[in-house]
């Protein structure tokens, strides 16, 4: 397995399959009374979050704890050393000196995890860097899709919304196209990035025209904090043109599923009642996120690259 997970591009389709297959076993662990296994006892995982996040950090924390690793949370808030002027590099070297085995990093700047990986011995996992990538989200999305469809090959996935600012969309397109799915990006022209041709995905500005063809409708969160950028007139207008409501759900194939990376803005990108439909698997995505992150930590912190043939197995 890779030492660092910075981008989906690093993973081959067979490595992705391995992550998903191993996650199956961790899903089972998550159903037990004792949802914890000892395999990463003595390892330390640091959640290094320079950008606010609740669900991703908790998901990683739970994943590491269920593997019996120790977890430390370093949040770049007003109380931390960052507020005292410590640089990113100094922070990295501090963690290095403390001997952590893995650093899960979220940063508002694209490329920050990549930099970090060159400063430390620990494995670095990108938990979201600016508008660049969010590879573990893409892997848990693949896992969740795989629970509903026999193969990724030829599957049609529509990603709807703010593509421009979305690392979820970037990693998602990379992962899905790698596995053989066809991705269509749907949204208002102001929220589609200019150099979209290189993504390997189709672009459509016609949500209702695309919906009947899709197997998966993936809604992105409207980033309310970007309201002042004037890319969308109002949230109400966004909901009218791009929101998934009951009427639009009727246009979908009967077996098509609805996904969302969370947190949802009910009534904006997704109507409140649509989020609770049977075909909406948003809650499963959260459950699967823990299993997929356990799988990654297990495969990345284990000895997979150090084969020792002579070690007896029995």
């Amino acid at each position, binding site marked *: 397995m890779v030492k660092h997970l910075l981008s989906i591009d690093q993973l081959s389709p*067979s490595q992705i399959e391995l992550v998903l297959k191993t996650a199956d076993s961790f899903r*089972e662990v998550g159903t037990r009374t004792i949802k914890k296994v000892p395999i990463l006892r003595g390892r330390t995982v640091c959640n290094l979050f320079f950008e606010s996040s609740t669900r991703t950090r908790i998901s990683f924390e739970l994943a590491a704890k269920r593997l019996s690793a120790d977890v430390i949370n370093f949040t770049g808030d007003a109380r931390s050393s960052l507020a005292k002027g410590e640089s990113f590099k100094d922070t990295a070297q501090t963690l290095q000196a403390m001997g952590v085995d893995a650093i899960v990093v979220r940063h508002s700047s694209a490329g920050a995890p990549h930099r970090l990986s060159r400063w430390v011995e620990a494995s670095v996992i990108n938990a979201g860097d600016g508008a660049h990538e969010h590879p573990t989200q893409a892997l848990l999305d693949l896992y969740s899709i795989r629970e509903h469809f026999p193969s990724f090959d030829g599957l049609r996935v529509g990603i709807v919304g703010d593509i421009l600012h979305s690392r979820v969309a970037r990693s998602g397109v990379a992962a899905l196209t790698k596995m053989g799915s066809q991705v269509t990006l749907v949204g208002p022209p102001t929220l589609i990035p200019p150099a979209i041709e290189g993504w390997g995905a189709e672009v459509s500005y016609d949500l209702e025209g695309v919906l009947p063809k899709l197997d998966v409708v993936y809604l992105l969160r409207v980033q309310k904090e970007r309201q002042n950028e004037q890319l969308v007139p109002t949230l109400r207008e966004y909901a009218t043109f791009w929101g998934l409501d009951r009427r639009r759900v009727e246009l979908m194939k009967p077996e098509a599923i609805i996904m969302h990376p969370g947190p949802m803005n009910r009534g904006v990108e997704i109507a409140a009642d649509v989020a609770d439909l049977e075909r909406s698997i948003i809650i499963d995505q959260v459950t699967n996120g823990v299993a997929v992150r356990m799988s990654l930590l297990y495969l990345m912190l284990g000895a997979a690259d150090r084969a020792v043939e002579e070690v007896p197995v029995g």
Partner: protein
Amino acid sequence: MDSLFSSGASSGAPSATSPVKAVVLESSDIARAMKRMAHEILERNHGADGLVLAGIRRRGVPLAERLGDEVERIEGVRPPVGALDVSFYRDDIEIRQPADVGQTTLPFDVTGKIVVLVDDVLYTGRTVRAAIEALVDFGRPRAVQLAVLIDRGHRELPIRADYIGKNLPTSHREAVEVRLAEIDGADLVVITEEPS
């Protein structure tokens, strides 16, 4: 990566390139050993009451199923059979990581039961240690016993089998390869040796 991950999926399985040195058990020998072990299990536990079988993945699972069949033939009731994957309980992740991780399915509550762990080859005992640890995460068995098709010696932990198909003294350079119809297409136990 793939070749790495596929290695060592089973207990004591050698690399496929090692030449076969001797055939230890044929299909009929394996069948007789399973039959005898089923009788021993029932004799020791005075019947099949409260008895459950847990095969250690991968090749312990079909062996546990077969023991279940034999017990049913003798007693008329089939004990519940489950599968235990011990990958997440191993002590050697530093040196060797099983990537062919399977799933644990125990379709019974282990608490209060007599659990017979079943594996193909008993060697260092480390797999069995991991299996015991995995098992007790599911509850508190009344007793845990161990049945193996082959005991090849060289224990590194204070573990012994309660039911043994065949004792097979081996050297470290040799490997015992158990092939089962359910996984490998045919039943056979051979000793292989790496060319020195």
